[in-house]
C-alpha cells in the first residue's frame, strides 16, 4: 500500500515536472541570452491560459489544438515586450531591470483581473477527469498528454539550440555578447528572438497546464518562483540544468504534498527555493551555459 502511494506521488510529480521543465527552459534562455531576471514570466503563462480558455469556451477549440495559436501569439507578445521595454534597460543597473519586469508583472496581472475578474476558471473538456491505470498507478489523461507534449517541445527547442545556425548564434550570444557581435551575429535580433522563444515556451506550458489546472489572474506568480527555483537548481543559464531542475521541483513538490500536507504544497516549493539559494546558489547540477 505504502509503495503504491509513493509510486503515485513520483508519477504525478514527474508529470507536473515536465511542465515546470518547459517553463524553466524558457526562463533560462531569456536569462542566458540577456542576463535579465524576468518577473513577468509566469504572467505571460497566465495570458496563454486565458487565450486557451476563451478559445475553448467561445469556439469549442480543443486546448491541444489551440497551442498552435498561443505559441505564436506569446512569441509576438514576448518579442514586443523585449523590443519596446527590456531592450532599453539591457545595460542599465540591475535594479532598473528588476523594477521594469515587476512593472510588467503588475500591469499584466491587473489588466487580467480587470478583464476577467478574480474568479477561478477551469476548462471542462470531454477528457477532463478521465484516468488511465498503469500498473497500480492512476494517471490523469490530460496530465499525461500535457507532459508528453511538453517533453516534445523541450526536445525541439534543444535541437534548435544545438543543431541550427540560429540556435548556435543564440548560444554564442549567451556566452559572450561582444565577441558574438564581432563574429557578425546580429545580437539585438538574437535577444528579441530569445525573449520571444522563452515566452512561447511558457505560453505552450500555460495551454498544456490549463487542461487540468485552475486559471486565475494571479496564477502566474507561483509559477514564476517555481521556474526560478528550477533554474537556480540547474545553474542559472543552463538548458539541461533547467530541464532536470524542473523535473526535480515537480517531484519534490509532489512528495512534499503526500508526506507533509497538501495545503503546504506551495510552502514546500518556497522553502526548497530558500534552502537551495542559501546552500548552493550555483545550482546542484553544474554550471554549463545555454
Amino acid at each position, binding site marked *: 500500500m505504502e509503495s503504491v502511494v509513493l509510486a503515485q506521488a513520483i508519477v504525478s510529480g514527474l508529470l507536473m515536472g515536465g511542465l515546470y521543465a518547459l517553463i524553466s527552459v524558457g526562463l533560462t534562455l531569456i536569462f542566458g541570452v540577456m542576463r535579465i531576471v524576468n518577473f513577468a514570466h509566469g504572467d505571460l503563462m497566465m495570458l496563454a491560459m486565458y487565450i486557451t480558455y476563451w478559445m475553448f469556451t467561445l469556439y469549442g477549440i480543443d486546448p491541444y489544438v489551440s497551442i498552435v495559436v498561443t505559441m505564436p501569439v506569446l512569441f509576438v507578445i514576448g518579442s514586443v515586450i523585449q523590443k519596446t521595454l527590456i531592450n532599453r534597460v539591457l545595460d542599465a543597473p*540591475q535594479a532598473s*531591470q528588476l523594477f521594469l519586469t515587476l512593472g510588467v508583472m*503588475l500591469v499584466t496581472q*491587473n489588466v487580467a483581473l*480587470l478583464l476577467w475578474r478574480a474568479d477561478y476558471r477551469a476548462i471542462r473538456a470531454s477528457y477532463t477527469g478521465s484516468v488511465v491505470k498503469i500498473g497500480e498507478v492512476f494517471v490523469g489523461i490530460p496530465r499525461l498528454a500535457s507532459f508528453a507534449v511538453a517533453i516534445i517541445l523541450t526536445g525541439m527547442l534543444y535541437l534548435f539550440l544545438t543543431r541550427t545556425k540560429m540556435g548556435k548564434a543564440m548560444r554564442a550570444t549567451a556566452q559572450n555578447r561582444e565577441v558574438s557581435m564581432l563574429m557578425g551575429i546580429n545580437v539585438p535580433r538574437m535577444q528579441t528572438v530569445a525573449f520571444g522563444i522563452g515566452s512561447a515556451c511558457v505560453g505552450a506550458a500555460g495551454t498544456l497546464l490549463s487542461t487540468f489546472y485552475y486559471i486565475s489572474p494571479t496564477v502566474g506568480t507561483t509559477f514564476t518562483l517555481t521556474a*526560478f527555483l528550477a533554474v537556480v537548481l540547474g545553474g542559472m543559464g543552463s538548458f539541461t540544468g533547467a530541464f532536470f531542475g524542473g523535473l526535480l521541483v515537480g517531484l519534490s513538490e509532489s512528495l512534499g504534498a503526500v508526506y507533509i500536507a497538501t495545503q503546504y504544497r506551495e510552502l514546500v516549493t518556497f522553502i526548497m527555493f530558500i534552502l537551495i*539559494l542559501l546552500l548552493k546558489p550555483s545550482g546542484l547540477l553544474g554550471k554549463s551555459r545555454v
Partner: protein
Amino acid sequence: MKIKALDNILRPKIYVPLILAAFLGAIPSVTSNSYVIHLLIIILFHAVLSESWNILAGFAGQFSLGHAAFFGVSAYTSTLLFISWKTTPWLGMFIGAGFAVASSLLIGFLCFRLRGPFFSLVTIAFGEVLRLLFLNWGSLTGGPVGLLVPLMGDSPINFQFLSRKPYFYIIFIMMLAVTCVTYKIRSSQIGLYFIAIREDEDAAQSLGIDIIRYKLIALAVSIFFTAIAGTFYAQYLLFLHPDSAMSLNFSVEIALPAIVGGMGTICGPLMGSFILTPISEFIRALLGGGYAGVYLIIHGGILILTVLSAPSGILEKIMKSYEAALKKMPGG
C-alpha cells in the same frame, strides 16, 4: 553647542522642511473634512513605509520585496496580544516591532550573502512563506477569514479613536521620526558605509567595511519603522488579512513611492507618496470596489515609465530646482 544648533536652524536646508512639516501638521486644525484627513493619513502611511524601505534599498542597495511580511508580523502580533491578553497596542506595537526585527535579522543573516536579483527573489520567497503560514495557521491568525480588531470606542489607551485627527498626528509623528532617522543616517558615517555597499560591495569590503553587519543595521532600522506602521494599519483599519497585508503586491506598493520619487534621497519617498497615493485613492473612489486592480495597473505603468525615462526618480529634476531655490532663501 547651542550656537551650532541655532546656526543649523537658520540654514534653509533645515528650516524649509520644518516650515513645510509645520504646515502639514496644521492642516487638521484648519479643516474638519474627514475625507481630506483620511487621504492625508493614507499618504503619510505610505510615506512612512516607503521611507523605511528606502533606508535598506535606497541607501544600502538591498532591494527587499518581502517587507510586507514583516509589516504583517508586527500587525498580527500587536493585534493578537490585544485580543488574548488585552495588551495595549501601544506596547504591542513595540513587541511586534521586536518580533519583526528579530525575524528579519535572522532571515537577513542568511540571505545577505546573495546579491542583486537573487536577494530580491529570496525575500519574495520568505515573504510568501510567512504569508502562507499565517494563512494556514487559522487557529492563531484567523487564517483566510482574517482578523478583526475588537472595537473599544474612543479609547486612547487602546490606540483607538472615533475621530481621525489623533490617527493623523500619530502617523505624522511616525513620518517625522523615520525622516529624521534617515537624515541622521545620511549625514553620519553609517550612511557613507551604506552608500559604499550600494555602489560596490567588493570595493567596500576591501576597504574594511563589515558589509554583512552594516546591511543588518540597515535592515533592522528599515523593518522597525515598517513594523510600527503595521500596528498603525491594524488599529486604523481594524482588520487584517494575510492576502492584503502580507502579499507581494503590497511589498511592491511599499517600494513604489521611493522608486518613483527617488531612491537614496531623504524626501524622494515622501514626495513619491504625495503623488502616487492620491492617484490610487481617487481611482479607487471613482471606480469602486469592483475594479480593485486598476490602481495597480497605473502603478505598474508609472513604474515602467520611471525606469525608462527617469531611472533615478521622476522627482530628481524637481529636487534639483528645489535645491537651487533653497540657495536663494535667506541664510542660504
